Structures are given as structure tokens and as C-alpha cells.
């Protein structure tokens, strides 16, 4: 068990290094010469060279990469070109709304999509099943921002039940927090729900045809018990895998959702950084999101052994 954990954790190191290398290359090949920008218009080529040397920009790629990596490991993501603030500082300011949004979306999606998938598998071939599958196909064919605008139009503008835009911190009370965040969470969660409902239905269909399910049925276990105890536990591994892989969709979608609902999170920070070509900020956010994604999938892999103790690599 412990050996598996250690091996799995070690296996993420090359992936993390690869991600770091890509993200660093991004800044490395980004247009605009920082030395020339700092030196200003009046500087002679010699001055630019001197500044370049003093910044260490004339050293080889790999040397700079590992130095940058060293800084990143110490929480230093560089300085924004636009605001001159440390990128880590800017990220820290913006992280709360994004984490809130993604957590709520995750809770919402899991609690809706998994029962939906289970019921679709149980009622296989019926109208309910078809309906769930249809909603799922629509769900992953509709871009997040379209769902966002549609929901905001219906529930905020037409019905006036919820605020159109904005974000309230959870420290100011649960109700205003949820009122602001429920539409973005549903918009962001739809594609994720579609993915999860489909995979839940598919694996449950597989599991429900197993012998032990028939045995459970024969010995008189209640339907609910069979579905949610016997079957779902054995269907957990593929479902959890999709929870992990689908997290990438959630990250990408969060960037868009925050733009639609004017949520001042990391997504907004990214979009603003793109418009200003603020490469260190783009780099920092991409790095953070990618590391989160890798960690989520590491956690998923480690969870496998909890759901299915037979798994040993």
C-alpha cells in the first residue's frame, strides 16, 4: 500500500517537470525583450546588454529554467509587467472566488450527475434513460458561456430571482454567497454533469449485469441497497477517473464563467492578463491550474485503492 502510494507520488514528478518546462518556455519565447523594456528608448545597445547580463537573461535556457523553478518552489512566480506586483500576490488576492466557484460546482455536479446516471442505468431503455442521455448530449455540446447567458437571462433578468452578476464572499453570509454563485456553478457544472452522468450510466450498466448483483437481488436486498451500495461502489473507479479528467474542463470553464458573471477570480485575472499581454501573470495562472489538475489526478489515483483494494500497480 505504502509502496504504491510512494511510487505513484514519484511518478508525478516527471509530469510536473514537463508542465513547468512548457510554461517556462512560454515566457522564454514570449515577444518583447524585458531588458530593452527596462532600458527604455534612449538606451544604447551596450546598455541593453549590460541590463540583460545583470538580470541574468544572457544565460543558457536550462540554467534559467532551473533557477526559475527554484523560485517557483519558493512561491515566487515573478512580477507582473502591468501592475509591478508579485504574481503570487495577485493570485492570492483572486483565488477565493475561483475556489468557491469550483467547490460549489463540484458538490453540485456530483450530487446531481451520479444519481442521474444511476437512475438512467436502472431504468435502462425507458423514457427517463433517454431523457438523461439527451440532457447529457446537450450538456457537452453547449459552451459554458452560452449556458451562463441563458441562465442569467432566464433567472436573473426575466424572473428576477437571483442577481445577474457579481460575487459575495462566504464570510458575508451563506445566503448571499449562494445567491450569487448558484447560476455560475450550474452553468459551469452542466458539461461536467453531462460527462459524469454518461460515465456513471455506462459503468452502472456494466456492473448491474454482474452475478453478485443478481445474487443480491435474489437474497432480497432492497433495490436502493443494490444500486447505491453493491453496484455504485464497484462502479466507483471509472467514475472517479472521469471526475479527475473532467477537472480540466472545469478549470477551462471557470475562466469563461467568471467573465460571464463578472466574478473577480483567477479567470478574470487570466483574461485581463491576455488583453494586456502580461506574460508572467498568464504563466503563473497556467502553472497553478496545471499543478492543481495534476494533483487532483494524483488524488484520484490514490483514491482507487480506497474504492477497489484489488488495485495494485
Amino acid at each position: 500500500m505504502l509502496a504504491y502510494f510512494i511510487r505513484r507520488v514519484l511518478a508525478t514528478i516527471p509530469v510536473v517537470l514537463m508542465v513547468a518546462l512548457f510554461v517556462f518556455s512560454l515566457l522564454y519565447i514570449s515577444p518583447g525583450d524585458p531588458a530593452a523594456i527596462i532600458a527604455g528608448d534612449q538606451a544604447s545597445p551596450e546598455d541593453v546588454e549590460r541590463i540583460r547580463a545583470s538580470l541574468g537573461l544572457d544565460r543558457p535556457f536550462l540554467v534559467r529554467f532551473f533557477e526559475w523553478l527554484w523560485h517557483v518552489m519558493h512561491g515566487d512566480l515573478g512580477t507582473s509587467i502591468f501592475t509591478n506586483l508579485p504574481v503570487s500576490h495577485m493570485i492570492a488576492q483572486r483565488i477565493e472566488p475561483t475556489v468557491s466557484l469550483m467547490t460549489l460546482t463540484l458538490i453540485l455536479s456530483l450530487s446531481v450527475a451520479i444519481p442521474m446516471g444511476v437512475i438512467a442505468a436502472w431504468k435502462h431503455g425507458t423514457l427517463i434513460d433517454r431523457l438523461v442521455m439527451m440532457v447529457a448530449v446537450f450538456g457537452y455540446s453547449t459552451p459554458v458561456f452560452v449556458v451562463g447567458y441563458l441562465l442569467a437571462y432566464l433567472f436573473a433578468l426575466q424572473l428576477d430571482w437571483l442577481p445577474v452578476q457579481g460575487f459575495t464572499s462566504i464570510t458575508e453570509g451563506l445566503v448571499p454567497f449562494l445567491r450569487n454563485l448558484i447560476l455560475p456553478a450550474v452553468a459551469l457544472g452542466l458539461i461536467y454533469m453531462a460527462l459524469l452522468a454518461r460515465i456513471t450510466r455506462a459503468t452502472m450498466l456494466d456492473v448491474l449485469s454482474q452475478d453478485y448483483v443478481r445474487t443480491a437481488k435474489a437474497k432480497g436486498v432492497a433495490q436502493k441497497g443494490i444500486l447505491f451500495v453493491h453496484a455504485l461502489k464497484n462502479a466507483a473507479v471509472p467514475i472517479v477517473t472521469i471526475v479527475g479528467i473532467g477537472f480540466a474542463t472545469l478549470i477551462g470553464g471557470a475562466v469563461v464563467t467568471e467573465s460571464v458573471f463578472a466574478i473577480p477570480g483567477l479567470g478574470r485575472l487570466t483574461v485581463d492578463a491576455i488583453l494586456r499581454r502580461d506574460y508572467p501573470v498568464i504563466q503563473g495562472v497556467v502553472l497553478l491550474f496545471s499543478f492543481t489538475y495534476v494533483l487532483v489526478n494524483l488524488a484520484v489515483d490514490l483514491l482507487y485503492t480506497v474504492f477497489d483494494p484489488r488495485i495494485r500497480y
Partner: protein
Amino acid sequence: MSTSVIDAGGHAVAPTLPDVLPEPKRRGRVMGFIYRHPTIALGGSVLGLMVLIAIFAPFLATVDPTALAPAKRTRPPSDLYWFGTDMLGRDVYSRVIYGSRVSLTVGFSVAALASILGTTLGLVAGFTRWLDAIVMRVMDGLMSIPGILLAIALMALTRASMKNVIIAIAVAEFPRVCRLVRGVVLSLREQPYVEAAIASGTRIPVIIWRHILPNTLAPLMVQATFICASAMIGEATLSFLGAGTPPIIPSWGNIMAEGRALWQVKPYIVFFPAIFLCLTVLAVNMLGDGLRDALDPRLAKRL
């Protein structure tokens, strides 16, 4: 088991058949295909319609999609302006019609580019053992960066143009193809007929052409269809965020991005292109689902 009938002596005899067997249900080839593969038929026809719209855009559009008419800005949908006009007075209907060109071009080009890139690298990884580990680690790294973020980052490096959008999305999508092709190659290499071909000295390119590629085609087609759908959403998302197709080109994402500022009062500017985008993506996804069911019955059962 209704076919065997027992006679008085206990012997089984053939049941008497009616003189005239009921006519087997005959359907035309087209109707038969629609009946067997409803999702392919429906998805394919909607996609075909969109392709026609894209090709005949100059004839379908009522006015030049980039023509400014400041005096007629933000008109609601009417007889004259079917989908209304945007804040610069441009006709939204004509823009949406022309927008189909961008989405389809990006979708198909990304699917083709990602397939070619992914297949090539997948074949290399599958056949060259020492390169395999390196290529696959690079793919793992690329796949660890959420696709749309990678595309955003790449777009931030370059000028906004349709070519760059295609490349950026293709870079984010091709590792999936690479993994798929490599997987097929690795499993095929164990097949006796491939081993026999290797043992009898067939050159690798010939093996690839004769044995590997034909077996890759079915899953590749399915994957390419889904990549096409996700590239269309990707282009719209990038344009919507202001990092995609240059604003001068009317793409569905751009129209929506421009409608953003006014969407609370003039929601139709956002919703008309959105409907077209969703319909097209839905059609491509249905086509992909149908193709998967038709080409790989094993997968069809699972998903």
C-alpha cells in the same frame, strides 16, 4: 422454441408453415440507413446543412457582414434585419451566416491537423522503443495543462489570426490522438499477423500502411469527430475571451464577444450565434456518437 411440434407418436415434426410468408420489411437504402443509424443521419444532415450555409454564405447573407451603419445600430430583429443589428449597425443575420465559415474551417482543420500530428507521433512512439518513453512523457505534460488554458497561452504569444487559432487548439488536442494511435500500435504489434509480417522481413512502412493504419482508422475517425466539436467550442471560447479570431472576421465567438457589453438589454446579439454554434456542435457530437456505435460495437455497449 416454437418451431418444433410433437406429433401423436412422440416424434418431432416440422411445423406447418403458412403458404405465404409475410413480406420481409423492405426499406430503401436511405431509409434503412436512417433507421439503423439515426444519430449519424441526423448529425450528418445538420452538419451538411451548415456546410452548405458556409459555402453559399454570399448568397444567403442579406448585406455585407462587415458593413457599418451607425444610424441603424442595435435594432431588434425585424423583417429587414432578421436577427437585428449590433452596436455598430452591422446585420447580425449576415454575420452569423458568415460566421459558419470560421467555425467549420477551424473545426475541420483542427481535426485534420491533430489527426496527422497525433498519428505520426503515435506511430513513432509505438514503433521506436527508446523514443516511446520520451514522447509519452511530453504528451503527459501537454495533457496536464487544461486544453483551453494551453490554447490561451499560445494565443497570447502570437498575433490573432485564424491560422494561429487552429494551431493553438490543435496543439492542445493532438496528444489524445497520439495516445490513441500508440495504444493501437502496441496492441497490434502483439498480433500474430503483425509478428509474422515482421518475422518475414516486411519493412516497417509497409507494415504501417497495410496493417496498422487500417486498424487505426475507425477509432481515429471517431476521435477526430469529437476533436472537431471541441475545436469549434474552443474557437468560440477563445474569440469570446478576446484571444481568438481577429475581431474583423465575423466568427460566432466574436459576435458573442461584441454582444457581451449589451447583452442585458439586447440579448439577441448573443443568442443567435449561440444557437448556431450549439446546433453545429451538437450535430458533430451526434455524428461522433453514431460513428462510434457503428464502428466499435464493443465501445457502444460501454458508453
